[in-house]
């Protein structure tokens, strides 16, 4: 069985997300902060006539500084987990790679990662967006 992943760079860390969750890749998007919003969901962005949440994945994973409105990142991933569509600011995005297997041995080193892949000699943890999103919604429900 093959899995399609897309390498994403958050600050200096390369991670991989499942291409199945990704709807679109956009450029730098200026997001609107929401007062009182969670730290990793600081605001919203308009996308196809509606507002979607901004997920600070780097901050969430602890691999990049928190996003700031004044410093929009060059790329914005539009992801959808189940019915929830959200935008992930990223620094660099690569094309979709298809991998055969995902190694799981080192997945525990990064939160919400369930395995790792090697693309172009670069080891990347594969992030489980649904898990991460769920963790945001239910922070004590998932021990991972």
């Amino acid at each position, binding site marked *: 069985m093959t899995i399609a992943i897309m390498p994403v760079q958050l600050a200096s860390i390369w991670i991989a997300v499942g291409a199945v969750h990704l709807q*679109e*890749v956009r450029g730098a998007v200026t997001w609107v902060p929401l007062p009182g919003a969670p730290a990793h969901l600081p605001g919203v962005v308009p996308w196809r006539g509606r507002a979607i949440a901004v997920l600070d994945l780097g901050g969430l994973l602890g691999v990049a500084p928190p996003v700031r409105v004044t410093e929009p990142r060059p790329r914005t991933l539009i992801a959808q987990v189940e019915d929830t569509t959200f935008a992930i600011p990223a620094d660099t995005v690569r094309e979709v790679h*298809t991998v055969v297997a995902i190694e799981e041995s080192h997945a525990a080193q990064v939160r919400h990662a369930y395995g790792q892949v090697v693309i172009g000699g670069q080891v990347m943890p594969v992030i489980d967006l649904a898990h991460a999103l769920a963790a945001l919604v239910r922070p004590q429900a998932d021990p991972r």
Partner: protein
Amino acid sequence: MTVPRTPLLRILPAIGAVDALFSALLAYTFAAMMGLEGSSRGVAFGVYAVMWVVKVSVWMAIVAVRMQPLSEWVAQAQPPTDAATLGEVTATVYRAPFMVCAAYSFALLIFYITYAVVLYVGFSDSVPLGPSSLTASVLAGVGITLGAVDLSFPLCEWLLAPFVERVSLTAQEHNVPARGGGMSYRARLVAFALTLALAPTFYLSSITYMNDARTEQRELVLRAELVAAHAAFGQDVGERLRGGSLFSYDAVGNVTDSEVADLLADRPELRRRFETAVRRLPSGTVEHPREGVIAFRTDGERKTGAIVPRAPSVSFGTTLVIILFLLIVSLWGPLSALFIANSTAVSVVRIADALAHVGEGEVASAPKVAVFHQDEVGSLARNYNIMIDQLRLLAQRTNEVSKGALDVEFDILRGDLGDAFRGQVTSLREMVSHIAHSASQLAGAASEMYAAAQEQEAAAQQQSAGVEEVARTMESLLVAATHVTESTMGVLTRAERTRETTSRTSERITELSAHANRIAEILDVIRDIADRSDLLALNASLEGTRAGEAGRGFALVAGEMRKLAERVTGSVSDIKKLVSDVRASVSATVLATEESSTLAAGTTESARQINLVTQQQRSGTEQAGQSMRDVATMITQSLAATRQVRSLAEDLKVQAENLNAVVARFRLPARQPGADG
């Protein structure tokens, strides 16, 4: 000419020879004049010769005795020069001509008159002389004596001239005054002229007297013959009349005798005078100098005439007398003139020769002259000797003066000449003193002038050297200023060019900056496009993945496109960085260019100001150099003038020293105590 040592040997033979010559001529003349012929002439010649020898012996003895002092003085090798001897000798030698002349002439007069008396008295039988012969002999003797004076006196003076000269010079040398023999030159000439005139006159008178006596004798003969013819009337006594004839004539003078008529036909004037006289007088005589004489007498009816025609030629006796007379006179005249000329000229010739030396300025070599005559010429000689003495003394003193002896006195010189030379020497002393004083002052002034000129020359040389150094420095400054000016001109030119280049560079850089900005803009666009292409490729990759197997290829293409977009973005980033660097460089360059332009402008202005200043400096340096050259020229001229002044001062100093040396040669008299000046 060798002069005999004895004056007698010089005088006696010469005068004796002249006397013998003229005595022979006079003897023949006497015989012819007296009409002596045959044995009477031989007796006369014999008596004449004997008496001539006696005469010569007598006068020579007298001369020898009277000239004994001179002969003895001359005969000595070292003649005595004492005053007494020299006085006697000078008296003898000056009186000798008079004595010789007097002795000779007197002896000749006595001889001639005595000779006539002896013949008249002692030899009247053999030598018949008429009573007029004594008178004629006395006249002839006087004439001969006068002629002898003219011969003997000058001849004796001439012959004695060497002795007179010797004695005179010796006497002058020993300051012995001359004595005796005084006769003025005018008296001498008058005497000569008188004797020259009287001697032939007397002699001619004697001849004439003797001719008259002989004519009278012939008339006596003719009268006797006429008386005898009258006694023997009609008798032709023509032969006895020595060419005359007796003739008869009528009342108108017609001559009956044909021969006498022929004689009268050849003598028309005598005939005309005869016919005229016959018509007026009964008796008479008519004569014509060339045609003859006619004496006519009337005794009653008898008219008798006697004609003596003039002989066609003079008789031989008369001709001989005339020839002898002419011969004597022709010998005596020139000889007398020669002797007179020589006797009087010898003194003048000596003086003239001596004066020739004086005329040539050779006073020292001018000889003294002897006083040959105690007359005006002798006085001239004495005065000449005095003049020579004075001139020699003057030359000697003048020579001493010329050698610097100004203390020489000219007191010995007399007259104006002495006064003139004394005044000249006095003036010369004053002048030399003044010159010495002036020369001393001149030498001092020349020394000071020379020293001052030397100092001035040294200062001028130092000044000249300094000025030359300054001139060289000014020349160097001028060259440096010229170089600086040229350099500043180059700097100015290059600064202006730099400013222009900088300006153009600034413009180019501005253009480059604009281009860079444009490139940056284009790069932004490209980056935006690449970014969009990257997004499209990513979305395409997502879409290809979503399409499953069918979209695998599409996903691969999308991946390649994204990589391409990424590479474009990276390249754009690199380019933008480069452009940014370029723009930064351009900005820095612009700033640098602006600064450079500002500096170039400042440099240009500074170079312009430097150029202006250096040109002014060069002009000033040129003016200063010209001024220094002018100063150097003036100093050089001043130095040359100073050198000339020094040279002149040196010459002046030398001249002053020479003048001092010249003045030092003069010996001034010792200054009188208390003398002024």
